């Protein structure tokens, strides 16, 4: 975080830095500030601690998944299966809550979620298959498994009032909603892992140049495998929040989440080619999407207006990023 503030200072436009480079580097932070300022001016309800926590809470499910997916993307791969996996994990934890007990349900949910992550990781890490197609196949397969498990019926927790399972989605700790707290805490931990540990550096290395990393003695297979375990783990955490908040689950609750998650990751400036990215920026990216949603709703627009705005924001953000690296606004072909 401190390094990020430092880099922000050093990159201010001036003699050495063109406006294009500035926006390319810090466009996401600028966009975040612009969003906050515009919505604050437009709606008196926007700028309050209460509303801020609402935004973070809304962002928490997609955001928590995006944390793990950021690792996968930095490692040079994609994970499209997280949406289906979220459905599967949520259904599993909610269904097992009544059948065994809450604690056991959570343990089993994480076990099976990590197992699926391991399958992804084995196919992509060890068999070196194309990650987009493998996770596309897994998206379909996991959706099928979920439906087979439930027989097509939605699941519910019978006694919703008297279970400590409500902690993860419905309660507050130190005046902060637990989902927001979980999301931010996990974000801070993973940012430290990514930036301060050897593991994090290795992920950057395999994403930047896999062959070079392999020849330098990094175990690419194992590292890719671990990124998929991580994205499965954060998806499990998101399922915990979602299941606890809703106290029930539809079979397809996570449908389409994989692409919203990717939208947040991409908005945060993580390159789909791998080798660059940051957890902090992913969090900002996800928060911008949630801010747009929240702000437009407060201004009285129907909820689907946010999708239109998101479209523009994603393309402009990535465009500026690329244009800054290229030094020119338009491409050359």
């Amino acid at each position, binding site marked *: 975080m401190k390094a990020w503030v430092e880099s922000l200072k050093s990159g201010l436009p001036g003699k050495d830095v063109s406006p294009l480079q500035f926006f390319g580097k810090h466009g996401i932070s600028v966009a975040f500030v612009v969003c906050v300022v515009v919505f604050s001016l437009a709606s008196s309800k926007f700028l309050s601690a209460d509303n801020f926590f609402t935004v973070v809470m809304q962002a928490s499910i997609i955001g928590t998944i995006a944390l793990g997916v950021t690792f996968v993307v930095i490692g040079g791969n994609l994970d499209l299966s997280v949406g289906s996996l979220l459905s599967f994990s949520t259904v599993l934890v909610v269904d097992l809550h009544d059948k065994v007990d809450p604690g056991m349900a959570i343990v089993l949910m994480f076990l099976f979620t990590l197992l699926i992550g391991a399958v992804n990781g084995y196919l992509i890490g060890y068999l070196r298959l194309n990650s987009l197609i493998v996770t596309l196949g897994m998206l379909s397969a996991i*959706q099928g498994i979920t439906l087979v498990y439930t027989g097509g019926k939605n699941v519910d927790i019978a006694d919703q009032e008297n279970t400590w399972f409500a902690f993860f989605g419905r309660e507050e700790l130190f005046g902060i909603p637990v989902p927001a707290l979980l999301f931010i805490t996990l974000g801070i931990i993973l940012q430290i892992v990514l930036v301060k540990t050897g593991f994090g550096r290795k992920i950057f290395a395999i994403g930047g140049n896999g062959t070079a990393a392999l020849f330098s003695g990094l175990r690419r297979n194992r590292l890719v495998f671990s990124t998929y375990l991580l994205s499965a783990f954060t998806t499990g955490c998101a399922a915990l929040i979602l299941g606890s908040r809703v106290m029930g689950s539809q079979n397809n609750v996570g449908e389409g989440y994989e692409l919203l998650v990717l939208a947040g990751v991409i908005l945060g400036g993580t390159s789909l080619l791998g080798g660059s990215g940051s957890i902090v920026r992913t969090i900002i990216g996800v928060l911008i999407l949630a801010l747009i949603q929240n702000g437009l709703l407060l201004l009285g627009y129907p909820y689907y207006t946010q999708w239109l705005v998101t479209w523009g924001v*994603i393309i402009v953000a990535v465009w500026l990023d690329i244009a800054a690296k290229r030094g020119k606004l338009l491409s050359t072909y």
Partner: protein
Amino acid sequence: MKRIFAIATKQPIWLFVLAITIFFSFSSPYFFDLNNFSNILVQASTIGLIALGMTYVMINGNIDLSVGATVALAASLAVGLQPALGIPGAVCVGLLSGIAIGALNGIIAWKTGVDAFIVTLGAMIGVRGLVFIYTEEQSFYAFDFAYSDFGSSTLFSVPTLALIFIALTILAHLMLKYSVHGRNVFAVGGNRVAAKEAGIRVGPHMLINFILVGFLAALSGILLSTQMGASTPNLGRNYELWAITAVVLGGTRLTGGFGSIIGTFGGVLAIAILRNGMNLLQVPSFYVLIILGSILIIVLIIDKRFAEQQGQGVGA
């Protein structure tokens, strides 16, 4: 024997189509029947039309995730505007909307240099927003029965929709194989830099392909709405994933430069036959999802093995 092996390595999906056709013919008395076959073709046409365009886009080294939303936009416009414009006018507007979305995607990908995956991911979210803004979350019904009659009409006792699909498949195959554009699509997908150095205009070819897939997605949406006599704002969800699945099953590589319409047609048929056959066997549709997902991964493993034997990596 050698020839069979050659086909198996080049178009393994057709062996699979053959295998499941034989399997379902023996296991269900209703499967091997001309009526059922034309049924399968009609069911296949929705994803199939999109997959034809997607093949071009993917051979070109791009991808289009916005086709599902385009399906909904075109269908909503084509049904919703009927009271105002009449059927021909509304259908034209629907088709134009697909062309417009494709052109927009193509121009953005061309001029900004942003990866097509990101451009169309944005469009997928945004176009769905457009659909909801236009429809205000309402479903539309076609009150003129001529519209839904078209969806169930036949020509020479073959369903019209199946004929349209077959005709466009042949057209797409010929264009990919024998036109200058088709050749350049392979060249650009195989090696974009080399293609550019050789004087091929990379951008316009990308643009044409995005317009093509936009148009075909719109057509698919409109034909789907003639089958239902209605349109819903959530129409076409996940169709992009199904279309990509069909194209990949057909042997087109995500890295570009390799693929065929015949393979895609096989992939589309494989999905449609599986769905139809398992439906006839009264297997819950859930299992189809698992089987399709597994097949996709198995095809990838086989493809990888063959590529390694021939000393060429599948890449990325």
